[in-house]
C-alpha cells in the first residue's frame, strides 16, 4: 500500500512548551487513520505541520510522496475543526471558489458542487446564503468542499460534530466511499465508538508523544484482559480454569477471569457440553477504546 503521509521523528516547541516530541507514524492510502488524544495533546499542531502551516523544529514530514508544495496541496482536502465558509455568499459560489483554488476550472468546480449538493440532499439550497443553512447542513457543505477536487488525502477534524444520526450516516458513507476509491483519510476525533468501527489504524498522542500506534483491533487486543464476558445462567465460579468472577461494568454480563494456561476456547467448549449452563453471549473481554484512552491518559499523568 502506498504511503500517504510519513511523519518521521518530528518535534515542535512553542517557547519553553514542547507541543510535539519525537513523533513518528505513517498513514497509508486506502485506509481511515484515526488520530486520538486528549485536548492539548498536540493533535492540531501535528495536523498543521502535516499541512505545512507550521514547520517542525526537527524531523521530516513527507506527504503524498514528497515535501509539500503547491501541487501537493492541490491533492489534499482539509476539514478544519472550526468550520470555515464565507457566510454571506451563496453556497454554490463558496464551493466553486474554494474548488478553483484547489486547481479545478470554474465550470468543473461549479458542476461538481451542484452534483455534491444533490447527493447530500442540499440541491435546493445551492443559491441560498451559507448563513441561512443549519449547522448540520453547513457541516455537510464543508465536507463536500473537502472532497470536491478529488484529493488523494483528506484530513478531517471532528467530521461528525453537529450532525444528527441520519446525517452522520451520510457523511460516514462518503468517508468510506473515499477510502474505497483508494484515498487516505486522517480523522481526528473524540468519538471513540466511531473510531472502533470506522478506522483501520490509529495513533494516540498524549503530551506530544506517541502513546499508542497500530491496527485498531490489534491495539484493543493488546489491552485485552485475560478474561471472557458471558451473558447467561450458571455457576460460573465453579468452572475449572476460572480465577475469579466480576460483574461487567455495564451490569449485563459477567467477567470471567481465566487462570494462566487456560484459553477462552477451553471455557466455551466446557460450557457447551454442560446442561446446567446457558449462554446468550460469549466474547473476549476486549476493552472499549474509550477505556484504553482513559487508561493511557491516566498513566501518562501518573508517570509525569
Amino acid at each position, binding site marked *: 500500500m502506498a504511503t500517504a503521509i510519513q511523519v518521521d521523528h518530528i518535534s515542535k516547541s*512553542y517557547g519553553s512548551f514542547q507541543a510535539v516530541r519525537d513523533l513518528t507514524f505513517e498513514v497509508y492510502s486506502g485506509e481511515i487513520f484515526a488520530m486520538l488524544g486528549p485536548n492539548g495533546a498536540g493533535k492540531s499542531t501535528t495536523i498543521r505541520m502535516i499541512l505545512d502551516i507550521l514547520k517542525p523544529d526537527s524531523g521530516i514530514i513527507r506527504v503524498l510522496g514528497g515535501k509539500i508544495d503547491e501541487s501537493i496541496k492541490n491533492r489534499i482536502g482539509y476539514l478544519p475543526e472550526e468550520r470555515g465558509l464565507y457566510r454571506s455568499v451563496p453556497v454554490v459560489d463558496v464551493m466553486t471558489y474554494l474548488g478553483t483554488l484547489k486547481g479545478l476550472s470554474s465550470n468543473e468546480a461549479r458542476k461538481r458542487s451542484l452534483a455534491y449538493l444533490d447527493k447530500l440532499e442540499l440541491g435546493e439550497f445551492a443559491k441560498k446564503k451559507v448563513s441561512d443553512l443549519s449547522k448540520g447542513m453547513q457541516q455537510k457543505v464543508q465536507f463536500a468542499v473537502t472532497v470536491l477536487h478529488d484529493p488523494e488525502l483528506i484530513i478531517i477534524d471532528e467530521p461528525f460534530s453537529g450532525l444528527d444520526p441520519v446525517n452522520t450516516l451520510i457523511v460516514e458513507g462518503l468517508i468510506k466511499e473515499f477510502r474505497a476509491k483508494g484515498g487516505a483519510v486522517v480523522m481526528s476525533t473524540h468519538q471513540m465508538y466511531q473510531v472502533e468501527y470506522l478506522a483501520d489504524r490509529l495513533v494516540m498522542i498524549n503530551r506530544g508523544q506517541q502513546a499508542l500506534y497500530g491496527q485498531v483491533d490489534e491495539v484493543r487486543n493488546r489491552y485485552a484482559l485475560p478474561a471472557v464476558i458471558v451473558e447467561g445462567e450458571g455457576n460460573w465460579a465453579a468452572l475449572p480454569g476460572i480465577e475469579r468472577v466480576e460483574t461487567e461494568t455495564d451490569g449485563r454480563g459477567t467477567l470471567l477471569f481465566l487462570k494462566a494456561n487456560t484459553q477462552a476456547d477451553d471455557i466455551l467448549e466446557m460450557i457447551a457440553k454442560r446442561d446446567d449452563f446457558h449462554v446468550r453471549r460469549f466474547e473476549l473481554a476486549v476493552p472499549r477504546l474509550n477505556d484504553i484512552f482513559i487508561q493511557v491518559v491516566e498513566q501518562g499523568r501518573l508517570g509525569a
Partner: protein
Amino acid sequence: MSKAWLIARREFVSNITKGSFLFAAFGVPLVVIALLFLVFFVIAQSEDDTERIGAVGYVDQSGVFSDAVDVPEDFVAYESAETARAALDESEIGAYFVVPENYLALGNIDTVSRTSLPEALRDQFDAFLISNLGRDLQPEQIERLIEPINNTVLTLDNGRRLQSDALLGLLFTPFIFVFVFLLGSQTTSSYLMSGIVEEKSSRVMEILVTTVTPFQLLFGKIIGLGALGLVQLLAWIGAGAIVLSLGQGIPALQGVTIPLDLIVIGLLYFLLGYFLLASIFAGVGAVSSSEQESRQLAGIFSLGFSVPFFFITQFLTDPDGPLVTFLSLFPFTSPVTIMMRMGFGAIPPEQLILSIVILLVTTLIVVWASARIFRWALLLYGKRPSFGQIIGALRRSPVMATTPNESAGR
C-alpha cells in the same frame, strides 16, 4: 501565481457587483460634487442678483455727482443721509451710499443696507463713480478705467494657460481628483481589511492557508482590490472628460482641461499610495480580532492621508514654503499634496522625483513588513497581539503562529 490571480479575480468580481461599492464609488462623490456646484451657483447667483435690493439711494455731499451722468437705473438721489435713512426705513430703497464732503481727499464711502450687498451692485456703484469722476475723458478711457484688464490670462509656471473666469475650474479639478483618489484607495483598502477580518473570524482562513501561501493571498487581494480602485478612478477621469467637453459653454469650465501630466503623475501616486495604504490595512486586518477594532486602528492611518486638506491655504499662499515641501515629501501626505499642488502650479522636478522615490521606498518597506505580519498573524484568534509581539514577529523570521508568543520571542 495563478492562485493569486484567482483570489484577485474573486475580490474584484465580488466587490464590483456590490451595491455598497457602487454607491461609495460613484454615488457619494456625485452627491458631494453636486452639492459643491449647488453651493457655488447659489453664491454666484446672489452676487449677481441686484434686483433683490430694489432701488438704491445715494447722498452726495462732495459734489462728485452734481449733474450726474450715466446714472444707473434704480439709483435715486437723496438730499441728506436722514431722508435716505427714512426711505430705507420705509423700504422704498434697499440700500444707500453716502459720499461725504471729504471724499476726494479720503476716498471713504458709507454704505447702509439691511442685507449684505451683492458684488454686482458694488461694481455698479464703482462704475457710476468712475464715470462721473472722469467725465472729461473719452468714453473708451472710462471703459478702460472700469475694466483695465479684460479677459485675464494666467500663464502658470507649468505652462498651462487659464482665463480668469476658469479659476474655479482650476481649483476644482485637482480637488475632485484628490477626493476620488482618497475615496478610491480608502474604500478598497477597507474592503481588503474587512475581508481579512471576516476570513479569520469565519475560519475560512484555515482552508485558505492550506491551499495558497500567505503571499499569494495578500498579493491576490491587493491586486484585485487595486484594480477595483483603478476602475473607480478611471471612471471618474472619463466622467470628468465628458463633463468638460459638454460644458465648454460654461465660463467656469472654459479652458479647463484634465492635463495629461496630472493624470500620469496622479495614477502613479494613486498606485503607490494605494499599495502603501492597502498593505498597512492588510497588516492591521491580520492582527485585529474584530472589524470594529481594525477600523479604529486603520482610521489613524487614513487620517494621515487627508492631513494636507487642513493646510489647503498654504498651497496657495506659500507653495514653496517648508510646510508644503515637507507635506510633498512625507510618504503619507505626499500623494494628496502632490496632486493638489499640480493643479496650482509647477512642482520643481527634483522635488517631485525625491517625493516619488521616498514614497516608493516606504511602500516597499511597508509591503514587506506587512507581509511578514500578515503571514505571522493569519491563524491568531482572539486577543490582539501586543505591539512588542508584532515587532518581535517582524524581527525574527516569522512563520504562521497560533499564539502571539510564537516566533516573537519570550
